[in-house]
């Protein structure tokens, strides 16, 4: 789960990670009011969407008067912001964060994420603030300094010093930076974060370090114990069909092909998409219906897949282990009665009681159900059906 910049900064504030003052605004009026409350003579108006690259897309603008605040807020709120992370369709901006200006002397990058190979968090810093860290890693990896932090001992002074001296900070700045990094580590661990990215982290003319931007993602498995984080979830930032599927414990991800997929198990679901691709088709979605695959879940699966108008055929690929195929077959028949399935459905059931299942499907005599014998056969038939063959 991801949160907005202004939400991440609220969390930062609780841990004394320094940020600029700012207010959230849903209208240009509120933006002006926010600027007045903040005072000063320069403000930054920032689109709040769950994607990076907002500045380049025109979603972050400087204002030198409250009149300008109103003007840029009007431009940004309601705009369809396209960045390298939103995809070509972009994202509708519903709110802006109005922040006080800062006297920026230098920009850095600071981030924390889980290093899966080392099985502990790593903190990364770079002098290339404002650039995408992936690009820095690719073009000049020597400019990224990394420290791994053993969760058992936690963040130590040396971790911070290694980063500070690595960045070439003057010695009078080292302690301030170490305090900043240490506080950020606490934000990460206490809240079950998956990643934090501050890009840029800035040093101001008066020698302060500030998080100018903030991006945070969280471990979904830990949300049950991070209620304050869960409350920050913004469903309008997520694909509506994926949210709907989630309510029924179905894991669905929309893709841009025309062969719908319904599969049990995440690995087989990905494998089914790959097989469709291999056979010359394009998968319309990822959908894991889980272990039970009963009439209700299958019906819901059909409903969700068919919300996508591109879908021309559906491939149901179930490997019955503990769940028996004959039960799944009955579930599929039941589901076709519950939902109007108007495209060919190719069904491949393998595993426990597969032969009985094939018999049940044949006898049901539903004309748009096509039986398949194995994974390759099912994918071939589904691709052909989607092409109208």
């Amino acid at each position: 789960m991801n949160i907005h910049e202004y939400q991440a900064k609220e969390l930062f504030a609780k841990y004394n990670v320094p940020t600029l003052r700012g207010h959230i605004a849903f209208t240009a009026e509120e933006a002006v009011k926010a600027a007045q409350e903040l005072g000063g003579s320069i403000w930054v108006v920032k689109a709040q969407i769950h994607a990076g690259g907002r500045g380049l897309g025109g979603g972050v603008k400087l204002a030198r008067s409250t009149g300008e605040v109103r003007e840029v807020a009007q431009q940004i709120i309601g705009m369809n912001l396209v960045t390298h992370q939103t995809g070509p369709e972009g994202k509708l901006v519903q709110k802006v964060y109005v922040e006080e200006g800062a006297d920026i002397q230098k920009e850095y990058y600071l981030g924390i994420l889980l290093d899966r190979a080392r099985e502990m968090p790593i903190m990364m810093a770079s002098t290339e603030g404002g650039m995408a860290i992936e690009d820095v890693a690719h073009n000049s990896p020597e400019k990224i300094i990394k420290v791994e932090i053993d969760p058992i001992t936690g963040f130590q002074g040396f971790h911070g010093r290694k980063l500070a001296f690595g960045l070439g900070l003057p010695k009078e700045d080292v302690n301030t930076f170490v305090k900043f990094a240490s506080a950020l580590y606490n934000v990460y661990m206490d809240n079950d974060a998956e990643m934090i990215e501050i890009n840029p982290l800035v040093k101001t003319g008066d020698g302060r370090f500030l998080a100018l931007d903030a991006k945070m993602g969280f471990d979904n498995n830990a949300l049950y114990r991070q209620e304050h984080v869960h409350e920050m979830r913004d469903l309008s930032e997520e694909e509506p069909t994926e949210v709907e599927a989630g309510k029924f414990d179905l894991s669905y991800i929309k893709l841009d092909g025309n062969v719908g997929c319904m599969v049990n198990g995440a690995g087989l679901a990905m494998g089914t998409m790959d097989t469709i691709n291999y056979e010359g088709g394009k998968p319309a979605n990822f959908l894991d219906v889980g272990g039970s695959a009963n009439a209700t879940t299958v019906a819901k699966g059909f409903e969700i897949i068919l919300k996508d108008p591109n879908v021309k055929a559906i491939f149901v690929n179930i490997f019955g282990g503990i769940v028996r195929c004959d039960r799944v077959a009955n579930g599929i028949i039941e589901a076709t009665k519950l939902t109007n399935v108007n495209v060919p459905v190719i069904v491949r059931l393998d595993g426990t009681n597969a032969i009985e299942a094939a018999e049940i499907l044949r006898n049901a005599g539903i004309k748009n159900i096509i039986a398949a014998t194995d994974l390759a056969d099912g994918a071939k038939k589904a691709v052909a059906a989607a092409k109208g063959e």
Partner: protein
Amino acid sequence: MSILVNKDTKVIVQGFTGKEGSFHAEQCLAYGTKIMGGVTPGKGGQEHLGLPVFNTVRDAVLATGATVSMIFVPPAFVSDAVMEAADAGITMAVIITEGAPVKDMMYAKAYATKKDMMTIGPNCPGIITADECKIGIMPGFIFKKGNIGLISKSGTLTYESANQVVKEGFGITTAVGIGGDPIIGLSYKQLLPMFEADPETKAIVMIGEIGGDLEIQAAAYIKEHITKPVVAFIAGQTAPEGKRMGHAGAIISGGAGTAAEKMAALTAAGVTVVVSPADIGKAVAQVMKNL
């Protein structure tokens, strides 16, 4: 022969009396696994499925001599259960539970390693040695005995692969579902040498997926140390970047962890990499023919 578990392996179940724990413990017993009893705090002294229930793992180990624990406790209690097993002298914990917080596993695995306890999972189907011992939730009947070792991040792809291998006239020595979480226990790199050393295993199937770099590490290891033929499939060639594909660890982030890079590394290491998972069985038949 086999790896890690066999007909003599003594197993206890943590979360024994719960719905999932009960159902699968019964299935494992029916398969022939030596389930010795289980642990449910507060229910010590009772009997369940005709077997003793203990309050602590320590009590269970002392009374039964079990060396392996199969864990079914809810996600919030997984790290506690794993650490209790490690503390009690269990040598391998098979963690079936799905949805454990990453931070918890970070601590639990570090503790287990310190106590010399191996872990499998979490969020995995478990481990099975064909016709001898099933510790997990996989349908046992698919795994006919044979000469192929199997390592997989995915449950259903494990069944799919085993089924294809059997349809081609071969069978399985041991199959290990290592799980698809960001932090897991035994992985390819630890399991490959075990299969290499097992005289009964003639070839190895490894199923990977997008996210992380365990498959890349495996490729480097295979190149240097594995002489037996390896067939691999990497799921998620068509997965979009930045989306979590069901498994907590199956995500391409910042352009890293793609199927393409893993397939390239494995191919360069001499592994037979299939593009379609429907070809796993055929590829195994081919490498076995070439032996």
